[in-house]
């Protein structure tokens, strides 16, 4: 099972839209500080950004369903994501 990435949109394994990845502050990876919980702290809006490098496909999908406005960091080299573009 993989999550699909098309542009900035994430879809589940069945093609159902989950979330659009778009930071209104246009935060970059180099702007973030890693914290001890394998996440990042964002200094711009003080939210936690979940590092999906440490998560399974199910964990990512469940987290988005539970908290649709959650912030994620996605590495496109991560094999749990399949790029459609």
């Amino acid at each position, binding site marked *: 099972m993989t999550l699909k990435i098309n542009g900035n949109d994430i879809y589940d394994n069945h093609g159902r839209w989950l979330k659009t990845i778009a930071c209104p502050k246009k935060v*970059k990876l180099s702007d973030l500080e890693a914290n001890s919980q*394998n996440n990042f702290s964002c200094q711009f809006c003080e939210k936690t950004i979940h590092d999906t490098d440490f998560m399974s496909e199910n964990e990512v999908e469940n987290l988005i369903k539970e908290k649709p406005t959650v*912030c994620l*960091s996605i590495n496109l080299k991560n094999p749990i994501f399949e790029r459609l573009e």
Partner: protein
Amino acid sequence: MIMEKLTVTSRIFGKLFKSWRNGSSTLEDDQSESFKNKIDSAPEINPDVLNAHDDFQLHESAPEPIKKKSSYQFQRKCISAGIPEKLGNTKDLPVVQTVFNPHELNKAIEAGFKTIVVKRKSNPQFKLESMLLRNIKSGEYNQVTGRSMPVQYARTLEYPEDEWELIHKVTGYARPSSLISNWGAYVLPKDIKVGDRVYIDELIEDIVACAFWYTVYPADDAEAIWNGEYLEIDHAPYGRFNRIG
């Protein structure tokens, strides 16, 4: 206004960087006097002052401010190198050619091109380190970062000494071509102006495009800004390998 700002930037950089002519290269010594006048001085970056200019602000109307730092400040040692990543010339920018031998460099100079000789410096992020272990009972081999190795999905793999024997400490470099020759030269487009954004099809410098866990992916090409002295690599385009939001 932008040009004025960039000129100021050039002056700042002029103070921050040591002249290539004072460096250790002997390339220039071999050139004829006429070539000496044509070869531009390429700076050697002094890492102590790399970020000293971060406070400098480009004019508001600058369309694409250059990003000077790599996105990847990873702390893990990498085990392997991925296939070099190509950005492609998606913006149809003027193309900078790259040469790696004096013959082609001289030909470019004779043809009237401005050139920059660049000394390749090793990038610590490209140093690969690991241990080759063998399971004492089964004979199975594994290449790991340590006896305790965090991996994806928040797991940690353990390789205790009484179960896994060390066969070799493994070292490597993620961009082996850099070890073959430590210099190259950029051939600039003839009509290039200070502040122009260009596309470098074959990058000389060792730059990380992206990384995932224990694999680092070197950049194969780049976008850069000509500042009148050298090409400033823009790291922003490598951000395409990540999404945040």
